[in-house]
Structure formats: structure tokens, C-alpha cells
């Protein structure tokens, strides 16, 4: 019975959407569409959360996320962001060692000499 399946999926819905078939059918269709979309969004959201956690963890040591990842790439350390965020939360000493490795590989852009500004027709080149 399709109705039985619909009501099984409509558990926990608000108001008539869990009891009345016409409304429940619409809401269940929408819920299934959302879950399809969100299975793909979850991967994006998780990666964004790991990046925020890594950023917070490295800023404690004076390095921001961008410079940290650039240093790791230079040293060919292929730890992914999931593992890095777990390290930053639960293994602080190992994480500090990683931040130091990244900092020796890429100390940041503070000492760059500014590129000379182009004047006149040289701007077009």
C-alpha cells in the first residue's frame, strides 16, 4: 500500500502532514527531495566545518588556515581536513608539531618586497 509507506515516512511531521494522506504525500515528496539534495550538501558542510576548526586551531599558534595548508602542501603532507580537525581538537601536541612543520616550509608573506607599480603606458602591457 503506498499510503502505508507514505505514513511511515511521515512520522514526526507537524500537524496534518502526519495524519492526512493528501498533505502527507506532498510533504513526504518534499522531504525525500530535501534528503537527496542534502546527502550532497552534507559533504560540503562537513568540509566547511573541518576548515573552520582547523583555522581556529592554527590561529592559537599564530598561523592562519591559508598559510598552514600552503605549508603542508609544500611539504607534501597529504593529511585531509577531517583528520587535521580531529588532531587539532584531541591531539594538541601533534597538531602543534604540524603547525611548526608548516611554518618552516612557508613562513608567510610578511617579508615580501612590494612589486613596483607600473606607470604610464606600461599599465597596458
Amino acid at each position, binding site marked *: 500500500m503506498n499510503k502505508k509507506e507514505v505514513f511511515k515516512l511521515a512520522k514526526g511531521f507537524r500537524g496534518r502532514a502526519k495524519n492526512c494522506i493528501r498533505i502527507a504525500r506532498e510533504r513526504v515528496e518534499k522531504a525525500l527531495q530535501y534528503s537527496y539534495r542534502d546527502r550532497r550538501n552534507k559533504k560540503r558542510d562537513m568540509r566547511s*566545518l573541518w576548515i573552520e576548526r582547523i583555522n*581556529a*586551531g592554527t*590561529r592559537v599558534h599564530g598561523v592562519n588556515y591559508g598559510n598552514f595548508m600552503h605549508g603542508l602542501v609544500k611539504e607534501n603532507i597529504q593529511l585531509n581536513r577531517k583528520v587535521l*580537525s580531529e588532531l*587539532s581538537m584531541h591531539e594538541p601536541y601533534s597538531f602543534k608539531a604540524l603547525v611548526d612543520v608548516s611554518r618552516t616550509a612557508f613562513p608567510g608573506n610578511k617579508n615580501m618586497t612590494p612589486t613596483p607599480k607600473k606607470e604610464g603606458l606600461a599599465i597596458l602591457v
Partner: protein
Amino acid sequence: DVWNKTWYPKAEDHVNTEKTWYVVDASDKILGRLASTIAIHIRGKNLATYTPSVDMGAFVIVVNAEKVAVSGKKRTQKLYRRHSGRPGGMTVETFDQLQQRIPERIIEHAVRGMLPKGRLGRDLFTHLKVYTGADHPHQAQKPIDLPIRDKRIQKQT
């Protein structure tokens, strides 16, 4: 399989009684820069255990709120508006007038605009405690100084 599941805080990881309390003196600090650091600490974005759906932040006490500074001509030109909901019910005051009337509201307004809007945001806002004058009634929580990393937050005299 602890390495393959992203950590999510349990109830005992964010008990209010074990959170840090910070205190910051607002005299001669630029309003927006101060509000930004306060909001970051209240929301918990400076912690590696940051979670957007859970309140992992700290409590912040602001003292000397009436002495907060703004640059340029904002003291007489920055407007604070509120609307009562009825037609013609908009009230506009300048920074100066609001500072005479209710100085705490200036910092509260600034920080509230920088916290998320929603149920969690409203809860976070209750973790901000603003006081005029140099005293605060939270000595029992032993607040520590708020670490400020912004170099331009102090008003240049």
C-alpha cells in the same frame, strides 16, 4: 572508530558552569573592533572545538561601557534607529544622545549585530554582560582578561 566520525560535543562538553569568563575594559577602544572580538569569543570561533549548532563559547563582561570610543565624526553623526511598529513610530537618536541615556545599549547593539540571529544567537547574547563604571558583580566567576589581537583597537589620542 573515532578517527572516521567527526566529533560532536556531548552535553557535558558545554556545561555553562565550566565555561571561561573574560573581562574587558571598553574605555578608549574603538566600538566595532571591540564588538568583533567579543562576538568571536562568545560564539566560540576561537576554539578548535567550534560547533555551529552548539553554544561552545565563553562569557564576556564589559566594564566602563560609557567610555567606548568611535573614530571620525560618528559621535555626533552615527544614528541609532528603532521602530515601535505603529505608523510614524520611528525614533532616531545619535550616538551621543544614546550614550547619555543608556550607555550599555551601544555595545549591546554592536555585539548583537555580529552574533547569529536565531534561537542560538539569542542565547549567546545573554552571555554578554555590559556594565557602566569599573565594577562588575561577577567576581565569583574569576574572569580573566580578554586576549585582543587587533592592533588598531585602541583609540589614537
